[in-house]
């Protein structure tokens, strides 16, 4: 089992009741921000990722959102680059997962190819390349691209990036959206033909089929609560895997889980409860539902399916009023002592066959000292129980960075 630390970059001082007046994205009013507190919020995210790398996580993970108060990460490769550099300097063998630059949103796909390649080189071949489509509010409102073209752009951009990484000679690209006369990027990824590719999604059949047929990793996020929606998504995934002739290697799957751990269950609730509740209400809860699917983003059959869905409703649509009890009962967040947390995670990891776990240990207003306590406790007392879960089945993780040897050479400063 590989376990990575995932961070979003929220502004940590959102005013109480923000969600009743404003949206957390697109139109979120910047006037609520105090500049010094923005500096602190941003710096804390860098510091906490490094704390996680030092504490023994297998990887660190960041993602992209523009015009957002709950994840101020307009370009996650900036954050990832700083961490990759610092990790090299400290000779920490840690994977850098960018989950990632949105391929359906970008107007400059070759920049993504270049930035990812640079990260792979700087980290000595430790990049995991996330290829998300991009959320509708980000692609269609923030970047203002026509919603109906989002997936077409995504497909073209993915093809272009993969070719730019591996094609030995300069080539022209005459695409539907992009035209280039000579593509010849510097640098190229150390991991050839490409770093491991992970694709986050909500689990729609089309996305799962695309991921499985290309042999990439599917990343599912716990916002809806694995207790409510995990079964239907992962059952569908493994059924489809069988249909497409893929093996049951658990490393094909990654799962992002919010976790808050303290010495005891009671202390955990006391320390983290208010932060979790405020985070979901003012962050995900304050994204208007309509902004998650601008007309054209989802095909008519998919919309009809969502409207008729007989399956259990996830928490995402109810976040604005989410209570601590709902968050915990649905497992949107797993909160408690190390034993409680490890038991719950181990249960769903085994049930759904998850080989790559991402844990999000900072939420909204959580201060740095409390976050670092969460990171340390998780790394020290939960992670060791999780790591050997799949050892007995003997699977190889083909979707983990391969060039592990370069760290000491790079850190040695290239001295002859």
């Amino acid at each position, binding site marked *: 089992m590989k376990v990575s630390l995932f961070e979003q970059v929220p502004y940590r001082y959102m005013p109480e009741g923000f969600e009743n007046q404003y949206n957390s994205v697109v139109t979120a009013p910047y006037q609520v921000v105090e500049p010094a507190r923005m500096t602190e919020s941003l710096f804390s995210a860098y510091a906490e990722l490094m704390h996680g790398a030092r504490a023994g996580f297998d990887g660190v993970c960041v993602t992209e959102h523009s015009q957002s108060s709950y994840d101020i990460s307009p370009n996650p490769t900036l954050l990832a680059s700083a961490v990759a550099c610092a990790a090299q300097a400290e000779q920490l063998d840690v994977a850098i997962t960018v989950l990632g630059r949105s391929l359906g949103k970008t107007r400059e796909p070759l920049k993504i190819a270049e930035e990812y390649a640079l990260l792979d080189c700087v980290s000595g071949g430790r990049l995991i390349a996330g290829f998300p489509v991009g959320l509708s509010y980000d692609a269609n409102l923030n970047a203002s691209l026509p*919603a*109906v073209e989002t997936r077409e752009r995504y497909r073209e951009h993915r093809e272009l990036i993969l070719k730019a990484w591996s094609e030995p000679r300069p080539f022209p690209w005459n695409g539907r959206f992009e035209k280039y006369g000579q593509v010849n990027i510097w640098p190229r990824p150390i991991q050839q033909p490409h770093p491991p590719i992970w694709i986050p999604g909500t689990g729609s059949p089309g996305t799962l089929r695309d991921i499985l047929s290309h042999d990439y990793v599917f990343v599912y996020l716990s916002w809806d609560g694995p207790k409510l929606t995990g079964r239907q998504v992962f059952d569908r995934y493994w059924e489809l895997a069988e249909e497409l002739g893929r093996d049951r290697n658990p490393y094909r799957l990654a799962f992002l889980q919010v976790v808050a751990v303290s010495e005891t269950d009671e202390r955990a609730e006391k320390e983290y409860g208010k932060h979790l509740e405020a985070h979901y209400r003012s962050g995900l809860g304050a994204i208007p539902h*309509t902004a998650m699917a601008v*007309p054209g983003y989802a095909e008519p059959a998919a*919309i*009809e399916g969502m409207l008729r869905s007989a399956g259990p409703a996830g928490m995402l649509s109810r976040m604005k009023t989410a209570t601590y009890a709902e968050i915990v009962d649905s497992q949107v967040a797993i909160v408690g002592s190390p034993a409680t947390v490890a038991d719950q995670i181990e249960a769903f990891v085994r049930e759904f066959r998850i080989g790559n776990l991402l844990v999000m240990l900072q939420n909204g207003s959580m201060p740095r000292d409390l976050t670092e306590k969460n990171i340390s406790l998780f790394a020290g007392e939960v992670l060791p129980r999780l790591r050997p879960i799949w050892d007995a089945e003997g699977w190889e993780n083909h979707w983990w960075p391969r060039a592990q040897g370069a760290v000491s050479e790079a850190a040695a400063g290239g001295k002859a």
Partner: protein
Amino acid sequence: MAAGAAAVRDETVEVWDSRLRLHVKIAGDGPPLMFFHPLAGLAWQPLLDRLARRHTVYAPEHPGTSPGDPQAIREVQTFWELLLVYQELIGTLGLDRPAALGQSFGGMVAADLAATFPRLFARLVLLSPLGLWRDDAPIPLMEMVAGPPAEVPKYLYAHPESEAARAAQALPSDPGQLAKAIAQTTWNVGCTTKFAWPIADHGLGRRLHRVQVPTLIVWGRQDALAPAAYAKEFGSRIAGSRVEVIDDCGHAVQADQPERSWTAISGFLAG
């Protein structure tokens, strides 16, 4: 209006090198008139019944908006291609200089067709067309399309509670039909906004001088989507055009002011 409802038939016309099968609703008798529908797709409505008493009305469905053929939108990559598709359609239908009436998004399409192909139409009626942009009169298209569905009427109608406005927004009560209807309308808006996003300005203002046919521009003074300031913009760019700005009237002029808008439209088309 039921007594005056026209018999409407649905014809499928192959265009665009056989890549598109466009659905065209056809009704009435008389000289031909093309109707270009607004963002949410083609809805047969009292205005079209009235037009069908004097014209043969041809109302094409924007590519992708015909039920059962959502992927047709992929065959039209740019607004320029959309104009070519419609120009081919008019030729394939065998129409010789029909009148054209376009509303909102459809008004932008009709206006650009008339500017691009100055001999395509005989007359042009534009009901609160999109297509221009002024920084001092922003068009909140993105806000309407990506906002709560319950707020859409406030952009479209001066009187959202009127019978005509409620009829235009009505949804089926059967849950299965409701899901289908919402999915279809949502997709329709996705298909039309492909050519209007985030700002419906393809440079039409630089081409409008090419419109050479008699033109009527109708606007609602209280238009909350495309402010009435644009009536003058269209009017001043199209030589000899007539501008009618109707009081107590929003974006959907024929719903808010059916009689006054009909008087203007029918008088112009008869002239």
